[in-house]
């Protein structure tokens, strides 16, 4: 009872709610702007929390985190421009829905799925934190390599069109991830004297190029959008959509928590994996990619749940699960609190208040999302040529803003051209993108596992979890391709 009183004292006050509301709104805006990530938003706001009490500071930063993760989906649905890497998967069905004149439906279902994922993730965070942390701690480099390979393989398998082309795209992404300093030896690879790519090809400009600039370069895009049907906005999702996506939301949320809890595997992997699984298991599998509402729900639920999952190793082990939680850990330490196994023992009031803040932040973002989506959807009524010019400027400033390096704009433009070429030649962008994100994780963990096993490749089948992940993903890829081939034959008949 005492703990509840302490939580109430920590959380039910004006500064806490004020900070939470500001953080959520700021996060939504940051997430919606291509190139500005949750990491950047939190990093920008940390200096403002110096003089704030701990709980309002945490509420604000958590609001930014969850707001930014959802904010990326608004632009992904409306403009085919994901604001964050995790939102890239939202474009697959969100944008086709927008083109069908169902932007409002896509946005409201996305917001509701975000709430489902957030609440489910928060509940799992509260009740399962110790167990999940224990399991995540047992994973070694071999398992991380297997997980990265599995994610890339599955996304290549679920891509439309030729599996060979999708695999080539994935391999090109992996090759591109090798640019920059070698993660183990520090040797600079393929940098050709440029310091701009010393830390690897900057991911955000590539993402902006592939999604935003490709859209700007598309001369047909303004005509397509201008002739699209009315937005059909509704503030809350329809009951039919809620029922239709309920099971997808639950499944994706559970998957998202587990993926998010594994260090290194964040919301982006959860989103892509969940999309693949939803596409595979749904009766409407062939409709995925053409504007299937379950595709939007699966991605939103999983990626939001993954953010709660990422909080598990952060709070209970002191290990950040992704780049955002790495910045958050800095904020904890800045305020004199060391996350880790002792946090729940030494500061139960604060730890449970944080868990409460996580849940509340998701609800706040949902409320804002419902209102903000309305105004974002109205943007579609403007002249699309002006919108295109605005996307151009936002993409350019987004690519530049992360590092303040003009070379990043050039990188974004070049990858915009690469995106056009890929599209024209039927090479899917998603495997390329995911392979680029996971490339260094796959390589470094593979080499670490090899070093730990004294150069023997037996770690691939000696470790049961690794073997299970690899076998399951191989089986899933074969199954997906067989199903796709059958569907193709049926369609041809």
């Amino acid at each position: 009872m005492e703990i509840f009183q302490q939580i109430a004292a920590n959380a039910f006050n004006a500064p806490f709610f004020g900070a939470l509301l500001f953080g959520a709104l700021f996060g939504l805006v940051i997430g919606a702007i291509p190139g500005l990530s949750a990491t950047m938003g939190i990093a920008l706001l940390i200096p403002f929390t110096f003089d704030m009490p701990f709980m309002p500071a945490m509420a604000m930063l958590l609001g930014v985190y969850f707001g930014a993760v959802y904010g990326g989906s608004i632009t992904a649905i409306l403009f085919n421009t994901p604001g964050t890497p995790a939102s890239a998967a939202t474009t697959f069905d969100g944008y086709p829905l927008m083109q069908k004149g169902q932007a409002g439906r896509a946005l409201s279902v996305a917001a509701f799925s975000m709430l489902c994922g957030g609440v489910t993730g928060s509940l799992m965070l509260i009740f399962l934190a110790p167990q999940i942390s224990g399991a995540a701690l047992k994973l070694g480099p071999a398992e991380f390599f297997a997980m990265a390979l599995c994610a890339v393989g599955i996304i290549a398998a679920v891509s439309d069109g030729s599996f060979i082309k999708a695999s080539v795209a994935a391999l090109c992404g992996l090759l591109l991830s090798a640019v920059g300093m070698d993660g183990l030896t520090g040797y600079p690879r393929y940098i050709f004297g440029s310091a701009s790519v010393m830390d690897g090809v900057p991911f955000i400009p590539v993402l902006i190029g592939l999604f935003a600039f490709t859209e700007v370069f598309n001369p047909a895009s303004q005509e397509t959008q201008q002739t699209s049907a009315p937005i059909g906005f509704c503030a809350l999702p329809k009951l039919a959509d809620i029922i239709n996506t309920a099971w997808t939301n639950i499944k994706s949320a559970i998957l998202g928590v587990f993926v998010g809890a594994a260090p290194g595997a964040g919301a982006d992997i959860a989103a892509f994996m969940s999309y693949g699984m939803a596409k595979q298991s749904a009766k409407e599998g062939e409709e995925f990619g053409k504007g299937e509402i379950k595709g939007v729900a699966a991605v939103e639920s999983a990626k939001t749940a993954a953010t709660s999952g990422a909080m598990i190793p952060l709070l209970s082990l002191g290990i950040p699960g992704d780049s955002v939680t790495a910045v958050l850990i800095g904020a904890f330490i800045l305020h004199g609190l060391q996350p880790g196994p002792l946090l729940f023992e030494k500061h139960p009031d604060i730890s449970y208040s944080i868990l409460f803040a996580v849940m509340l932040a998701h609800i706040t973002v949902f409320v804002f999302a419902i209102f903000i989506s309305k105004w974002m959807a109205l943007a579609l009524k403007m002249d699309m040529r002006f919108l295109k010019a605005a996307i151009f400027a936002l993409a350019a400033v987004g690519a530049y803003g992360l590092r303040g390096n003009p070379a990043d704009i050039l990188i974004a433009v070049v990858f915009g051209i690469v995106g056009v070429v890929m599209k024209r030649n039927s090479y899917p962008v998603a495997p390329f993108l995911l392979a680029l994100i996971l490339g260094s994780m796959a390589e470094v963990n593979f080499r670490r596992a090899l070093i730990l096993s004294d150069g023997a490749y037996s770690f691939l089948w000696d470790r049961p979890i690794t073997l299970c992940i690899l076998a399951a993903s191989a089986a899933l890829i074969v199954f997906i391709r067989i199903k796709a081939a059958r569907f193709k034959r049926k369609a041809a008949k």
Partner: protein
Amino acid sequence: MKTDIFIIALCVSAIVAAAGFPKVSADAFGSAAFPAAVASLAIILCLADIFFEIKKRKKTPSKREKREVRAELLLMAAALAYALLMPVIGFVVSTGLAMAAVLKISGYDNFLRAFAFGLGFALCLYAVFALLMDIYMPCGLLN
């Protein structure tokens, strides 16, 4: 098929460049093995893709309108020019000009209005990023 050939050329160059990476005794796999293995696999798959494309004798894709191709190339050129000139001309002026160019290429005829919109939008972005977020934006001509 042209893209496959281009990717093959890129992968061969990657393998050749990887041959020069040093090896560390503790790391038997080395810095070169991963990119070389990935590039080799990509070459094999590209060759397979070429083989299947020849076998299928795919229908040539429908010809796009000249106007569309021209607009696409112009937009790419404008973006490249913007990326190269932004540090010299400055963020506000170059973004204003680039946005006006995008509008013009997209079929908006009133260049002055387009430039005014671009300039206004660029100034807003400048205020948010440079003044509010304290990110350095090149001033160029306005310096």
